[in-house]
Structure formats: C-alpha cells, structure tokens
C-alpha cells in the first residue's frame, strides 16, 4: 500500500469508498490519503458526503464498498483509538443534564486517558470557568469547544473535525483557526470539513472538494485558485458541477 516515493506511510488511507443509503449514493468511489503534519480541508456543500465519509473512517457507518483505514487498519482494529484519533462530529452530542467536567471525566475513563487530562483540555479550549455548569445552559459555541476538548483528551495524532466552526462567532472562528494551526505545528494530521471555504482557507495545506459524493478536486489552495479565478469562484464551479449531475 505504501508508495515508494514516500518514506512515511499515510495516516489515513481511503480507497474506493462508497456508501449507498437505499437509492441514494451518499459517497461514490472516493479515494484519498492524509499524511502526518498536514491540515486538509474537506470541502463541499451540505449533503456532499463529508459527514458520511468521516463516519465511515471512524467505524460508525459501514461502507457499502471500499476501505477507510487509519494507520493501515480499520478504526475498530486500533488498540487505543481515543489516543490515536480525536473526532468532533456533532456540536450537540451531550446529555444536557451533565456538567462539562463530568462529560469529560466519563470520556476520559471510556478512552483510557488519565483523568488529569480533563483540566488540561478544559484550559486548552477556554472552558475552565464553565466546567461545572450543566451542558443544557451552554451556547452552541461552547458546545463546539467542549467537542474539541473531548477530541483532544487522548492527545491524538489524527483529528477528524466535522464542521467544528458551526455556531462559532467571528472571534470563535479566529480562535479555532489559531488552535488548528498550533495543533498542526505539533505534527498532527488534521482533516477539517466545512461548507464555508473562508472558514478554513487561511489554515490549510491542502483542499479536498467533494460534491454529490464524488471527489471534485484534490490539491493545494493555489492550484484551486489557478487561472485567475478566485478560490471562492473555483469552489462554486466545482461543487455546482457536482450537484447538477
């Protein structure tokens, strides 16, 4: 599987990944690799197949065909998955009656992570002051921060972030961009999906555009904006071609 030109094997390897829900093909023959130390933007309009791809990579959704491997193995074959992979999937995935600290303690215990990490990640996402409030009273932005804290508990080398910017205000988005830059500088592999290109454009090394479940573009940001068109225009052209199929 490893390419002879690369000394480091890919962190993530997706080959021919396809998912059909009844008559709907959500993901259609998708292939890509993610390499250590890179931030990849996973872009596409709503319904493009980004979330389904992330969920297949994380072993939550079973592919119709194809493979999605982390470190050469399916997610379920990883020995300490939370210490290897951190994921943000949904900003609202909390029991509303639990306090943030309780939520993180439970997640730490489930993931085999020392409880001392709870305070560290709370500080990292600036939730220290709100840690003993019930999640019920959290704003969407605070929930996103708690999701990031949960993902970072195991200090994972790979981060799969599905629209982590949803619900963040401009200050929150700036904070998120800084955090992602810091995390990438530490050598982590990051896949961050979004339907808003501007949200991630300043942070990413590489852009993967999907629409209608198919790959439309895979390359760096400069290539995407080639031939004098703006990045935004190129993005819209690529994704509208997909939705017209």
């Amino acid at each position: 599987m490893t390419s002879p030109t690369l000394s480091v094997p890919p962190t993530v390897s997706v080959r021919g990944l396809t998912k059909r829900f009844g008559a709907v093909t959500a993901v259609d023959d998708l292939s890509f690799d993610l390499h250590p130390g890179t931030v990849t933007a996973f872009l596409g309009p709503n319904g493009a197949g980004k979330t389904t791809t992330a969920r297949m990579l994380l072993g939550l959704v079973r592919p119709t065909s194809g493979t999605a491997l982390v470190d050469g193995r399916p997610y379920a074959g990883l020995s300490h998955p939370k210490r290897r992979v951190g994921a943000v999937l949904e900003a609202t995935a909390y029991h509303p009656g639990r306090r943030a600290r309780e939520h993180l303690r439970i997640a730490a215990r489930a993931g085999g992570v020392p409880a001392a990490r709870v305070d560290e990640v709370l500080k990292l996402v600036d939730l220290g002051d709100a840690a003993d409030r019930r999640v019920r009273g959290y704003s969407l932005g605070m929930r996103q921060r708690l999701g990031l804290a949960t993902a970072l508990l195991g200090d994972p080398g790979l981060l799969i972030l599905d629209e982590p910017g949803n619900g963040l205000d401009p200050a929150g988005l700036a904070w998120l961009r800084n955090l992602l830059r810091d995390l990438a500088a530490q050598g982590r592999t990051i896949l961050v999906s979004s339907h808003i290109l501007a949200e991630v454009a300043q942070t990413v090394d590489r852009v993967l555009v999907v629409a209608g479940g198919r790959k439309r573009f895979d390359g760096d940001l400069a290539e995407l904006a080639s031939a004098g068109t703006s990045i935004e225009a190129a993005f819209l052209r690529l994704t509208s071609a997909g939705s017209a199929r």
Partner: protein
Amino acid sequence: MIVTEWLKLRSVRSTWLLLGAGYLLVIAGVSGLLARRTGDGAGLVPKAVGHVGLIGTLSLLLGVRVMAGEYRHKTISETYLAEPRRLRVLAAKVTVAAGLAAAYALTAALVALATTAVWLGDVPFSADLWRTLAGAVAWNVLFAVVGVAVGALLRNLVGAVAVVLAWIAVVEGIAAQLLGDSLAKWLPFQAAMALGDMGAGGLPQAGAGLLLVAYAAVFGGAAVLVTRRADVEG
C-alpha cells in the same frame, strides 16, 4: 467499560428520580393493602410485598434509557469511538442495568418489609413471602435486560418508552383476550406476574422465570445482531 457505564448512569438526575418513584409506589402499594386488612393481615403480606415486582416496569424503563438514551442525546458516537467493539458496550450496559435493577429490587424489598412492619408491628415471614421476594428481584433484573435490548433494537428513546409502556398497559391485555387464558400465560408480562407470584392460574413460578429468561435471550440476541451492523448517524 462497566465503570464508565455506571458513571454515565449515576451522573444523571433522572436515573434517581425514576428509581425514587419506585420506593414511593412500593410504600403506597403495601400500605393500600395492609391498611384495609381484616384480621391480622398476615395472609396479605406476600401479595403486598409483591409490589416490589411491579416496579420491574421502572427497571424496564431504566434499561431502555441506558441504551436508547445514548441515541437520544447522540452520545452513542462518542461511546463507540472510545470502544469500537460494540458488543462490549452492549454487554457493559446489560451488566450495569441488571446490577442496578437487582440493587433496586433488594432495597425496595427492605422498604416493603419495613412498611409491613409499620402496619402490622412485625413481619410474618413465610415460604410464600420469600418466594415472592426472590421472584420480584428476578423480575426486575430480567426486565432491565429486556429494556436494554429493546433500546438497542429501536434506538429511539421516546419510541422505545412508548412501545414498552403501551405493551404493558394496552397491547398485552388485548393480545391476552385474543389468545385466551391457556395461551395468554405465555405472554411476557403475564409471565412476569407469575414469576412475582402475583397471578393466579398462570405458569408455575420457576417456569415463568425460565420463560422470561428466554424472552430476554431472544431480545438480547436480536439486539446483538442489530448493534453489530447498524450505521450510527447523528
């Protein structure tokens, strides 16, 4: 894994509200029978203490919540990210729900006996009373297991709660009428009543217990098949 599941259950207030309600029902149920006693009331005691079995419905709801509550609050994804071997998660949930249901029934039994002592000044222990207590504990444990399985099968908290309550309150009664007495005793709630030694004319207690174990095994087996394959979205 089991500790994690216990922490999840313990950290939510509604767990304790649900269980607390059962103690009140037991006190009220025992008192209702013994307050209207004629004579010394000793003959009524097994039936009164049998209310511990009836709160098996709350153990059933507890089991449903342990599993379907994770879908309701979308925490199931995080659970499976930490432990992708889903059957281990299911096993831990069954263990915690059954364990808590057992502790619940045992403490409710103490409450029932204490209530009895308050009304009668003393608890007249008898073979019947012990049989009722043993059946009541088994009833709660088996209903908790069935609850986890139903939650895993339906994966929708509101739907699963509605289905189990409708079954107990309405559907099984109608099914029993359609089937007639000779077949109706094989229905799950009728079997639970016989296990708790509360119904007349039902199965013998041990047979009812085995039948409920079989029901739990069938629901559990179906839950294993669904849990292993199901896509977890949202």
